[in-house]
């Protein structure tokens, strides 16, 4: 055994937009072990349910994460609606699905940019984020916010998309798709990218299963698990094509995400087509009494929302298990045997969202 060195990585590191700390145990330049420590951005949001009215907490839930903010709000609303036995109008459910899928487009484009940045491909980074900006404009146009939408509420949604706006919305989506062909083609075929990503950080199917990996990380290792197939929201009417890859390396994870982008765009179009007319919200009376949980597929994997109410205005407990938390063990496995220079790429490949993880 060679001489081992412990190298601190993070919490501040150029590739990391958010703080996570890893102690890398190195032998020469090879990572032998990685010991994570998290907790730098813990904000105590779960405890806050005891202080905020359950209706108002939607605003807090949205602020758990800045990328999948809509799905956090939606997950919380779905869990509370189940407790209270609220039937959400069909149109609201479809609108939620549209915004949820658009969040996926947003998140995956952001990830592509960050990944390109991590491997030093600056212009691809800029182009990915240019497309992402169109997506943010689409959110701005339909919900009134770019990042935090305040569009979801318990019992429905607060905004409707009328026919004229839906047309503009779909035109903008077409523009995003056109731009995506170029970027996706680059990701697929560019030599420097495939040189950097292919064969790196292989996670076998058995490992992914044992370590409880979720989302694109699991799907890239051949596990066809996607919470959308359970048919929550409008997904029961949509039939999601789950995208999987077999090789389990960084390239496979990139490929799954890119194909999910196309799939999300297809789902948005389909939603717009079959969306029924009708009201967008129901009136909520009473307070939640009982417990329930909701599972949603976020861009990074499955998120789990648990709520427990005691019949009062304030919930007794809320728990949110986020996908990054579940993917951290898989990351530690991937890091073993990697070169030090590949560590940033490997960390980005699970698309970490530390704010979610620590809440």
């Amino acid at each position, binding site marked *: 055994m060679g001489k081992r060195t412990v190298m601190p990585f993070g919490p501040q590191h150029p590739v990391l937009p958010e703080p996570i700390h890893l102690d890398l145990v190195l032998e020469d330049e090879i990572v032998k072990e990685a010991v994570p420590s998290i907790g730098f951005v813990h904000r105590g949001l779960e405890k806050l349910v005891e202080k905020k009215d359950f209706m108002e907490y939607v*605003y807090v839930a949205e602020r758990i994460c800045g990328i999948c903010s809509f799905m956090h709000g939606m997950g919380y609303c779905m869990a509370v609606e189940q407790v209270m036995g609220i039937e959400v109008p069909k149109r609201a459910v479809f609108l939620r699905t549209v915004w949820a899928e658009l969040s996926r487009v947003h998140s995956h484009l952001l990830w592509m940019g960050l990944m390109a940045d991590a491997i030093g491909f600056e212009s691809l980074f800029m182009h990915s984020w240019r497309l992402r900006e169109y997506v943010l404009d689409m959110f701005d146009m*339909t919900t*009134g916010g770019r990042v935090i939408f305040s569009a979801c509420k318990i019992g429905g949604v607060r905004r409707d998309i009328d026919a004229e706006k839906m047309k503009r919305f779909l035109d903008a989506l077409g523009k995003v798709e056109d731009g995506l*062909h*170029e970027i996706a083609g680059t990701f697929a075929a560019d030599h420097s990218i495939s*040189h950097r990503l*292919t*064969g790196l950080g292989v996670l076998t199917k058995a490992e992914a299963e044992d370590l409880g990996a979720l989302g694109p990380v699991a799907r890239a290792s051949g596990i066809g698990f996607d919470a959308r197939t359970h048919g929550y929201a409008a997904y029961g009417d949509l039939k999601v094509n789950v995208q999987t890859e077999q090789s389990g390396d960084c*390239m496979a994870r*990139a490929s799954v995400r890119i194909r999910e982008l196309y799939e999300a765009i297809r789902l948005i179009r389909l939603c717009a087509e079959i969306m029924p007319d009708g009201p967008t919200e129901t009136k909520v009376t009473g307070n939640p009494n009982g417990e329930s949980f909701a599972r949603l597929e976020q861009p990074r994997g499955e998120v789990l929302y648990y709520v427990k109410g005691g019949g009062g205005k304030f919930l007794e407990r809320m728990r949110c298990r986020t996908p990054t938390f579940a993917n951290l063990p898989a990351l530690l496995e991937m890091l073993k045997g990697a070169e030090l220079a590949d560590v940033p790429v490997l960390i980005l490949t699970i698309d970490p969202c530390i704010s979610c993880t620590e809440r």
Partner: protein
Amino acid sequence: MKGAFVPGCGPDTARAKFMAYLPFLKPVIKSFFKKPATQSYPFAPMPKDDLVRGHVEIDAESCIFCGICARKCPTAAIATDKNEKSWTISRFACIVCSACCEACPKKCLFMKKELTPASEVKTVDVAIKNA
């Protein structure tokens, strides 16, 4: 190229290697002849939909100072005073959620799409009813 995505190993002949650098050449060359994708905000106005939530404004003349907006606000950014006939909003605390606008019984709160200017100090805006 449309929609095509072929994951997997990079090709290894020299010509294939060169060709593999090509996909990105198209967007790069196109970008040479295009205007910047960014806008020179705040010098050029930002086109915004009417729906966009920028800041809350009040028509103080129709307000009855019932305080419903203050109670509905998730961040307690609003304070109302019946005696002084004043309505106060802390711009730093406001998260622009528009809950107050929806709750107001007199519909005298409006969400405007313009943003309030950036500020270094915590600003409080006060509206006082004249009548």
